[in-house]
């Protein structure tokens, strides 16, 4: 991890010094344990502010579309596998241009789920977590515990298919094995095993605590519409209430808008203040997209998003 931090700083410093980009989007240490915060730096001497950890669980690609709109010039971005896939996706959708990006690629070891670490040490305030490739060292007031990385990863990181960046201009560590090792198709749609009559209960239970803060939408790099459907009022596609009908409409439509574009980066689940497994819907859709259209979002430049194209022989058994 230390190599990555040192090399990210060096790459950012060099890029800013040499004028390869006007600003670098990366992560700075968070104010409390197990957090990191996005930061934009525009001076080479600030490169030391950058860091890297397994708690960089947001998705910087989302902040780039906003930054790109505000000023012209090349933007640097620290990107692991999934974020680089989102960059590729945004390039494909015309939101970003490859030549306007300077990608500092980070081969990823999988990101941590802080709630799994908290759950391991209930009732104890965690003051700091340090990490190596294999273990997390969890520090409390008086004690220090070790937890294996493989026990603390986010769900989506076990089934990652692209831990190395797809595109990069600088790489800050030796490439790692490309996948997280798990089989996404086995876990992508867990409610399929329920008989149809019991799926609603699973759906309702999963989203019961949603307060509609929309953090899952706002953290998502795919959600850049100037007006989200959920904020439209004439007509109002989803009501403003916390009733299940509105919660369900919001999550179903949000997932559908992400279909074929989602890289399973997991930022939505990490952002949710209510621990909702927001990927239950998106990972099901991506599973279908893979099975039916053979596509995975953001794996190569120049590919069109699967829902903007068609094949004459696309499956249509259900159409009369």
């Amino acid at each position, binding site marked *: 991890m230390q190599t990555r931090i040192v090399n990210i700083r060096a790459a950012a410093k060099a890029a800013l010094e040499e004028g390869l980009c006007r600003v670098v989007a990366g992560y700075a240490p*968070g*104010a*409390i*344990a197990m*957090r*990191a*915060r*996005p*930061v*934009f730096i525009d001076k080479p001497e600030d490169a030391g502010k950058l860091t890297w950890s397994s708690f960089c669980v*947001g998705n910087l690609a*989302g*902040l780039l579309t906003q*930054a790109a709109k505000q000023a012209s010039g090349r933007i640097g971005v620290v990107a692991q596998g999934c974020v680089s896939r989102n960059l590729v996706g945004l390039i494909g959708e015309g939101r970003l241009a490859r030549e306007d990006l300077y990608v500092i690629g980070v081969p990823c070891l999988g990101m941590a789920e802080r*709630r799994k670490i*908290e*759950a391991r040490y*209930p*009732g104890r*305030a965690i*003051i700091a977590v340090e990490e190596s490739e294999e273990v997390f060292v969890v520090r409390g007031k008086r004690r220090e515990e070790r937890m294996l990385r493989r026990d603390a990863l986010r769900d989506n990181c076990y089934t990652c298919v692209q831990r190395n960046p797809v595109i990069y201009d600088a790489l800050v560590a030796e490439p790692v094995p490309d996948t997280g090792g798990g089989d996404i198709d086995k876990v992508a749609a867990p409610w399929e095993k329920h008989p149809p009559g019991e799926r609603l209960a699973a759906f309702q*239970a999963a989203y019961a*605590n949603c*307060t*509609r*803060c*929309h*953090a899952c*939408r*706002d*953290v998502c790099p795919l959600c850049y519409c100037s007006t989200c459907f959920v*904020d439209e*009022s004439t007509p109002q596609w989803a*009501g*403003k*209430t*916390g*009733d299940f009908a509105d919660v369900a409409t919001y999550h179903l439509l949000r997932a559908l808008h992400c279909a074929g574009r989602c890289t399973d980066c997991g*930022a939505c689940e*990490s*952002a949710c*203040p*209510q*621990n*909702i497994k927001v990927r239950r819907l998106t990972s099901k859709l991506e599973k279908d997209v893979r099975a039916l259209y053979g596509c995975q979002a953001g794996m190569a430049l120049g590919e069109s998003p699967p829902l903007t194209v068609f094949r004459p022989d696309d499956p249509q058994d259900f159409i009369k």
Partner: protein
Amino acid sequence: MQSYLLAKDRLDGFVSRLADRLTVYVPAKGADGLWSFVASGSAQPPLALTPEGGNTNMPPKSFVFPRTEVLMRFDNRAGEGGMILREEPVPAGRAVLLGVRPCDAKALAVLDGIFGRRASGDASGEVSGGAFGADPYWAARREATILCGLACNYPCPTCFCDQMGCGPHHREGLDALWTDLGESYLVTILTERGRELASDLAPAAQADLNRAESLKAEAASLLTGKFPMDKIAQRGVLELCELPLWAELAATCLNCGACTHVCPTCHCFDIQDEVKGERGRRLRNWDTCMSGLFTRHASGHNPRGDKLARVRQRFMHKFKYIPVKRGEAGCVGCGRCIKACPVNIDVREVVRAMNEQAPQTPEGAA
């Protein structure tokens, strides 16, 4: 003020006797690992009033200010003289929340100052004290909710309640304060309503009171230190609006509502009519200043049209506007927003920066 003692092994029995005449809510851990207030009957015994991680994931605000609240219903029944408006009855019966943290209770007291509250014990009394008159919906639910606090013996790294005129053993807004003495709870009665709950408890001894006092001092010492807010108070609103920190925050703030939804004092709402055929209902829903929709006018103009204005609003509201109007901060230091923010904006750092960046002398002064 009277104090009683309840042995911990008698807690479940105490709660179940209470539940015979009132609805009792206690903190409990859900299947998703989150702590929230649930009806005592559905909590797994033995009850534990102290959530892992210090506090419930969401504040008890929603018991008094629900996420979605029906204010009234209307329909247009032919032959019955046109539009018929019906007031929505407030749920009958009283509830007791057991294990409310002092910060969350103080938050309800802050909101009393905004929504208004009936004089305690006088359910039919006039609502008074609200910043904009009276809110009968708030007042009715507040009246029907008895708050038994649980003092914090171990504040979290994210807690800064002492900074905000509150504290781990603060009593404001509570009907009774419980203190965890190890083997038993010290139950300190604070209001008449709190007294009815303690009718069958044994009085506490002086040693118990002393123990609670020392726990209180210990808890206060665990908090991480205060920061100055003097310049925020002294400088004008417009001066604070121009600080450079807002642009820095806006660069990474997502404008999601995570911070406002988990906040015990955030109370912005949106009133909307939902109509279907001949029927409809008027609703009050939580809204958030982070959302552009919250302030967008029908004309399309938005007085808080960009992220900067919206993220600034949240902090200015809590640390400038409410203090100016009410003489106390609109934040109680519970630290939930620090934990919830997807981009780790720390309210303590923001307030520190506001104070540091505020001009030393008023604008225009020589």
